[in-house]
């Protein structure tokens, strides 16, 4: 216990000896962690949007604005009579708008003061009827019904979106991985530099009978301190950014966790970085 506190004190005094440079290093690392956190949030948002849409849209029948509730009901029944249709769900134009707002963010649509979306029926097809040709056939039939303004092959648009989301996920992962590798490099460099700066001191400690771990422990402590300090900064920044981009709305929990996890992530990278640094240096 006493020995550990000795090491922590050594580590802290090393950090404070060059507080300026060390703060800058922490700042650089936190920029990287911040980017990782917001990329994760963005990828998550996009993917949950895609999966929501993929579920929702089998086939969408847009209804003429002129239809009253009665005719809508009749039309719904008629549609559900088709053999391939499992069920049809009425989506009012208001519901459609609020869905869109949820996906794109309230603020993005602030410019609109009129709802341009139509009422619609969301149609789920029975299993075995979701092949493109079949869907096209059903769509053609539905289009001919009274009161239908248009039919949309939802899955096509979903395909476009899913395609974009896949690309973005790929790109985001590549970015995340490069950043992680970069951060580990920076951390292990920082520790290595501290190590080299003290290499003279370390040689002397060895001559006085210090064991390898007596020498290494302060550097491991430093790595963790660096990493988690940067993580804390990044957490604050990414939470702030997410809040700001969401125009002040609290984020849903599945988007918030990356902004917290980044602290632990930073600490973990710190351990990895310093282990790499002190492990590779022959004592």
């Amino acid at each position, binding site marked *: 216990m*006493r*020995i550990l506190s*000795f090491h922590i004190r050594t580590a802290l005094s090393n950090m404070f*000896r060059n507080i300026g440079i060390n703060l800058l290093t922490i700042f650089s690392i936190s920029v990287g962690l911040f980017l990782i956190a917001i990329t994760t949030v963005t990828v998550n948002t996009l993917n949950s949007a895609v999966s929501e849409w993929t579920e929702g849209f089998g086939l969408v029948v847009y209804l003429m604005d002129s239809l009253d509730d009665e005719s809508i009901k009749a039309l719904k029944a008629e549609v559900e009579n088709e053999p391939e249709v499992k069920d049809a769900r009425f989506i009012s134009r208001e519901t459609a708008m609020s869905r869109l707002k949820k996906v794109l963010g309230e603020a993005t649509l602030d410019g609109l003061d009129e709802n341009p979306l139509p009422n619609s029926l969301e149609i789920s097809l029975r299993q075995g009827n979701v092949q493109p040709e079949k869907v096209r056939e059903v769509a053609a039939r539905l289009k001919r019904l009274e009161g239908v303004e248009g039919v949309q092959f939802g899955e096509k648009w979903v395909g476009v979106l899913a395609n974009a989301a896949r690309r973005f996920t790929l790109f985001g992962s590549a970015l995340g991985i490069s950043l992680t590798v970069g951060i580990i490099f920076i951390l292990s460099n920082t520790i290595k530099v501290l190590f080299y700066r003290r290499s003279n*001191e370390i*040689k*002397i*400690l*060895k*001559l*006085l*009978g*210090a*064991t390898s771990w*007596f020498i290494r422990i302060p550097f491991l402590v430093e790595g963790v301190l660096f990493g988690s300090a940067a993580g804390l900064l990044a957490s604050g920044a990414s939470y702030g950014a997410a809040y700001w981009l969401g125009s002040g709305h609290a984020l849903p929990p599945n988007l918030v966790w990356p902004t917290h996890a980044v602290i632990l992530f930073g600490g973990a990278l710190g351990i990895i970085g310093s282990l790499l640094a002190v492990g590779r240096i022959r004592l």
Partner: protein
Amino acid sequence: MIKFDNVVKYYDGQPALNNVSFHLEKGEMAFLTGPSGSGKTTLLRLIYRDEVAESGRIIIADWDLLKLTGASIPYLRRNVGVVFQDFKLLPERTVRENVELTLRIQGVPSEEARERVTSTLKLVGLRHKSDALPTQLSGGEQQRVVIARAVIGNPAVLLADEPTGNLDPETSKEIMDVFKAVHAKGATVFIATHDPALFEHSGCRVFRLNHGGISS
């Protein structure tokens, strides 16, 4: 206590030590002399395993240095106090911290360490410089800090390499008294020096190195 058997050490293809054999008894005090570059420092470095011999046998207390594993080197070194010719002080630590380091490494509790540092610094006449950094000391003062750091751990073996090169004759005498006190407590003391005044009339054995060979 210190036994060399036909020890050979090469640097860059040139022999720095050539077939050196000698034996110091436990508790003996002896001197090592010879011209500049004759291998005195090299011989001492072999004792605390800072260098490894090419051939021959070196026994220090119970350790056979040619069979020593890397993991036990620290424990050998804790038993060998060294006054380095080039001091090797930590420049960013105070005099007190430098001297205390020997004890910290050995795990001595901090209160005990504190007291022992104070009395050892008094011994070498540097109590008033406890909180100075090495760069704030004169050459002779730095040399005395090194001496304090070497003797504080009560090592079984004390090696001193030119320990009075930066000291005036009077301070030199005081430092020799410190070494004699350590010797009186049972340590084996081995001092490398150019200064004949240190070993003349001392009654101790004097080993002479020349071109890598030893004679006594």
